[in-house]
């Protein structure tokens, strides 16, 4: 630790510049630390380079296509609609590059030293970074590990990066495949599947569990399934892939139910695992759980007192905004010597399909399994003037309360579900009752009225139901 005008300045090294790591670095700098941020790839991590943002850029394109294809419903005629797929990819890269520059600017502004290379932890105080110019030693008082995750691809899928691919490769194809098998009907599978179907691909989604979006409310999953089927996406649930054969023409998947599917490409999107390969955390004495994730307490500190770990490498939801929250909390605790805890009571999760899916807190089935008595209120968007005017009537808001009317969870499927979820997340975090939320004046005409109506519906007082 060096001193500056008699004040001790703490050195912190953050490994990984994804949304967890770079936010931790900026927060640590703002709290007064001298920060080194190590990144082997590009700042922004998976989220910005190969995840949340690129896929949203794609959805921006499919929304535009959807709008022109349905323009007639609004009394507007459009002719000669065509898709320029390489232009969509180029737009995605332009957005991504701009955001990368934005993060670099923020890092500069906050006096953070960015070291490009692969980190190896030699000891709790020393990290060696393999850079293009050779190894660089970085000594620090405290360390925050934020190395993120990579797609899980078991050997049986015969991953080759060209015919059998993951989300890492799907984003830079120069044309939409004629046909694709998507293994895993979770967030990535549904988002990419719907996008490619709109781009003209013949899409088959194979999900081993009984519903697509296995982590979502069953009614929500059914409504999304209905939409995917309308878009002629073939969805096979409750069946695993038993064998994969890569041929000259494409890929064949034999399913456990005896059927088989063939396509040009296969996307494996069955989950992501903590990326700690060749990091050397064990040399510093950091312990992991049986799934290879670093053990931390709610203050994000590991079993080694000066080492923190955040994001997809710890056993909390693998979401960018959770990583960011954990990163900022770890930075605060590390620099200010505090023991602030991250609250996981209200973790919002969104799926950017059309209609969007968003949820927070506990689900009805989880509550039932835990023996918690619940009440629910629902409201369908079609009951709103605004939804009808927008031509986006599909979907529902569902609010779940405990017997005392306190909101403990909510699921939304419908237009702008991810934006509408913010209010519900606050309600869960603050422990508002359905009555308190419903009593707030909501703007008319707006989609947020569905939230208000669902809150009133918990006690049978929805006006428009």
């Amino acid at each position, binding site marked *: 630790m060096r001193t500056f005008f008699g004040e001790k300045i703490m050195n912190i090294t953050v490994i990984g510049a994804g949304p967890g790591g770079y936010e931790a670095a900026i927060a640590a700098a703002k709290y007064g630390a001298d920060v080194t941020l190590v990144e082997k790839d590009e700042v922004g991590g998976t989220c910005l380079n190969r995840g949340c943002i690129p896929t949203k850029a794609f959805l921006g394109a499919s929304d535009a296509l959807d709008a022109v294809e349905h323009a007639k419903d609004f009394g507007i005629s459009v002719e000669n609609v065509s898709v320029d797929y390489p232009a969509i990819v180029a737009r995605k890269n332009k957005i991504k590059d701009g955001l990368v520059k934005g993060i670099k600017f923020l890092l500069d502004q906050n006096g953070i030293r960015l070291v490009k290379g692969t980190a190896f932890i030699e000891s709790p105080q020393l990290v060696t970074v393999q850079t293009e110019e050779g190894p660089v030693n970085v000594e620090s008082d405290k360390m925050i590990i934020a190395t993120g995750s990579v797609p899980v691809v078991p050997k049986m899928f015969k991953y080759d990066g060209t015919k059998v691919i993951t989300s890492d490769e799907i984003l830079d194809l120069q044309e939409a495949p004629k046909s694709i098998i998507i293994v895993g009907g979770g967030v990535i599978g549904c988002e990419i599947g719907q996008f490619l179907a709109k781009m003209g691909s013949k899409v088959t989604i194979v999900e081993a569990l009984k519903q697509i979006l296995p982590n979502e409310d069953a009614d929500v999953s059914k*409504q999304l399934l209905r939409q995917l089927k309308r878009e002629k996406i073939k969805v096979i649930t409750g069946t695993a892939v038993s064998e994969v054969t890569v041929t000259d023409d494409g890929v064949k998947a034999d399913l456990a139910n005896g059927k088989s599917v063939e396509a040009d490409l296969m996307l494996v999107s069955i989950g992501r695992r903590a990326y700690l390969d060749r990091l050397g955390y064990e040399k510093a004495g950091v312990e992991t759980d049986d799934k290879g994730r670093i053990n931390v307490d709610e203050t994000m500190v590991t079993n080694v007192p000066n080492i923190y770990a955040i994001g997809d490498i710890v056993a909390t939801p693998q979401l960018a905004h959770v990583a960011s929250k954990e990163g900022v909390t770890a930075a605060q605790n590390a620099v200010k010597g505090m023991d602030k805890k991250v609250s996981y009571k209200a973790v919002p999760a969104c799926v950017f399909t059309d209609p969007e899916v968003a949820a927070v807190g506990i689900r009805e089935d989880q509550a039932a399994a835990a023996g918690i008595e619940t009440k629910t209120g629902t409201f369908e968007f079609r*009951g709103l003037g605004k939804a009808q005017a927008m031509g986006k009537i599909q979907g529902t808001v569902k609010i779940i309360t405990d017997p005392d009317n306190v909101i403990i969870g909510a699921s939304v499927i419908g237009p702008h579900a991810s934006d509408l979820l913010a209010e519900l997340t606050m309600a869960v975090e603050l422990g508002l009752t359905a009555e308190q939320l419903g009593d707030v004046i909501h703007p008319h005409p707006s989609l947020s009225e569905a939230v208000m109506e669902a809150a009133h519906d918990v006690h049978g007082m929805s006006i428009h139901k």
Partner: protein
Amino acid sequence: MASPQNLKYDADQHLWVDIDGDTATIGITDFAQSQLGDLLYVELPDEDDDFERGDEFSVVESGKKANGLEAPFGFTIVAANDVLDDEPEAINEDAFENWIVRVKITDEDGIDDLVDAAAYDAACQA
């Protein structure tokens, strides 16, 4: 309206089922249409589409609700009632007359769970 005695009912899905050998005709009950209100749209499956028990085979939509209909047993679509494309309100006028699909039964599992008119009407009162 009391439900007709000659039909079987899926009390969860509010469907009536008229079984004739290995084929069946399926619609929604009068109680279901009264709860939904004026129907604006009925999404119909295509001929030869296969459905397993529990699969959604149609959606009936009113101004306030979109209600998916799940297959009470496994079947293949023989015909869908095209009249409903232009006149979904026909179901509001006579739900038992205006069927939604005619099917060939491919899996009888679930047929035993169907109930008679008295049991169905009692379930709706509860």
